[in-house]
């Protein structure tokens, strides 16, 4: 069974952590993955840095810029992940913008992902219909899941369409916003989480964008299976460093 599907079968709330590959230091990828696995997270999203990440807020933008300054590239990330499956058993998702993948060559990229043991991809600026028409068979050929986003503005008809072409999970963007930590979720967000839960989609959902602490994690996972934390984790890395990752995870789970 696909590692992503396995993670969704486990009881309890699923915690997924995002970080930008190549940040804070260029070769932190494996140390961060190891620390996250040891701290008991359920899934990891590895960000492929891009010069122009237009769905991201300042924290992730800056981490990507730093990663590129550190010399991070797509090829280097695959090198870092070459033996990752000897020690890391978590589902691994690569999250990146489409242009660097296009330059690498979509098929070559998929082949490398499969070779190093990546389970799925999130490509925010690759539209569902283009994926469906041009790339889906390729992704499937390499056993890769591709996950899509929905937001509070996404129409019901489109959510059903996305549900029908999705595997793994649907990435529920918590509010009309780019990525970034929020302190609390309001009534409108709760209503949106509830509305989606009532649709009883075939694909499970993870909530992302704006989750920063135990309170927002709990609010997000009242209805959804789990949640994704990015900006708050990167901020923590900036302030406290890789060595103290267990503290961050503990605080979210508390």
């Amino acid at each position: 069974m696909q590692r992503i599907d396995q993670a969704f079968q486990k009881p309890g709330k699923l915690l997924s952590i995002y970080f930008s590959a190549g940040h804070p230091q260029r070769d932190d990828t494996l140390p961060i993955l190891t620390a996250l696995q040891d701290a008991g997270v359920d899934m990891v999203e590895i960000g492929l840095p891009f010069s122009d990440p237009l769905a991201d807020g300042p924290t992730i933008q800056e981490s990507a810029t730093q990663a590129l300054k550190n010399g991070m590239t797509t090829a280097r990330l695959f090198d870092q992940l070459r033996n990752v499956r000897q020690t890391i058993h978590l589902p691994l998702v690569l999250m990146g913008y489409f242009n660097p993948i296009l330059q690498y060559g979509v098929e070559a990229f998929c082949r490398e992902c499969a070779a190093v043991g990546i389970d799925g991809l999130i490509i925010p600026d690759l539209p569902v219909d283009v994926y469906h028409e041009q790339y889906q068979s390729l992704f499937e050929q390499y056993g890769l899941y591709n996950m899509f986003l929905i937001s509070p503005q996404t129409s019901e008809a489109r959510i059903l369409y996305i549900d029908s072409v999705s595997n793994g999970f649907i990435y529920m963007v918590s509010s009309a916003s780019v990525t970034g930590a929020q302190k609390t979720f309001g009534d409108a967000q709760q209503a949106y989480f509830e509305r989606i839960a009532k649709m009883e989609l075939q694909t499970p959902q993870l909530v992302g964008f704006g989750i920063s602490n135990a309170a927002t994690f709990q609010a997000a996972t009242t209805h959804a299976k789990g949640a994704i934390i990015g900006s708050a984790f990167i901020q923590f890395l900036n302030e406290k460093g890789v060595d103290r990752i267990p503290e961050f995870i503990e605080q979210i789970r508390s």
Partner: protein
Amino acid sequence: MSYHVNEKGYYGDFGGAYIPEMLYPNVQELQQQYKRITATAEFKKSFDDLLKDYVGRPTPLYFAQRLSEKYQTKLYLKREDLCHTGAHKVNNTIGQILLAKALGKNRIIAETGAGQHGVATATVCALMGIQCVVYMGAVDIQRQAPNVARMKMLGAEVRPAQSGSKTLKDATNEAIRDWINNPVDTHYIIGSVVGPHPYPDMVARFQSVISEEIQQQLREKEGRDYPDHLIACVGGGSNAAGAYYHYLDNPKVNIIAVEAAGIGIDTGASAATSVLGKEGIIHGSKTLLMQTPDGQIIEPYSISAGLDYPGVGPMHAHLFRSGRAEFIAATDDEAMTAGLTLSQLEGIIPAIETAHAFAILEHRPFQPDEVVVINLSGRGDKDLNTYIDYFKL
């Protein structure tokens, strides 16, 4: 073969809408509505009236006698520099503000590089009494102080883009992020024929008044409605798209696009996207794009702040790849010299962007009886400091 956009938003291999899902409802609303709204009698009347009485259209098609003598051909200049606010940019902002109103939007955002599109957007927002936020790279804010002041005087809020290289591409990223954060009440007025479908086609249609007028004016002056050669400068490519629009599918017209070579195409300080770019995705559109082998977007260079965009509109990428248009690059020095030549032979100080289009006359000969139209897209007032520094005036 047609060189216009197809129903899916592509020009050949280029175009489309590569946008995050969060923007899908906004972009879909535009895709579904823009042709319908702009085809209504009410829209057309408002658009035409404002272009006539507020912008000052039609702009003249001027036969440049002395310039024609110098270059031994028949040169006509399409005087977009005489538009209100000093460039063609306002044709598009008038169209889009009317569209925004029809869509019930009450907040406008825009990106700007040199500030021309920002000023044109702030102008129409003042005209309509609509809130206006303009994103501008922090570096450009320093370089283009007079246009920042103009936008503020017109009531717009100018927000500095602090990310990346802090120039036009980053201002565009910030505007897109703002739109993601404000999906319901806000319309994003993109200033060029770039961005996700339907923007390239929508902006080209609003600018197509330029070629529509050239047709009428040439019929009066030359007894036929087309030139032999049609020249425009291309950054993102909005003035060029407008000048080419009604001639795209007329094979009698040789279309010439002039890009900014900067210091020189091979110097690492250039903005000649057709030569230096590879197929890629920027700001929601598949096009030719200056980028590293790893797919990171490169900051281009030109002395002209309006031409240093790392991509080019998908229409132009298609005109290049299909061979429909002749692409030529002009360096900073060639453009500055051409600006001085036009000033002294015809009494017209062009924008430095526009001066690039004139620069090719030195190297690209035309026959004496050929009719050549150059789109004089903007005036040079905004560039006076650059001219002063360059020529030690």
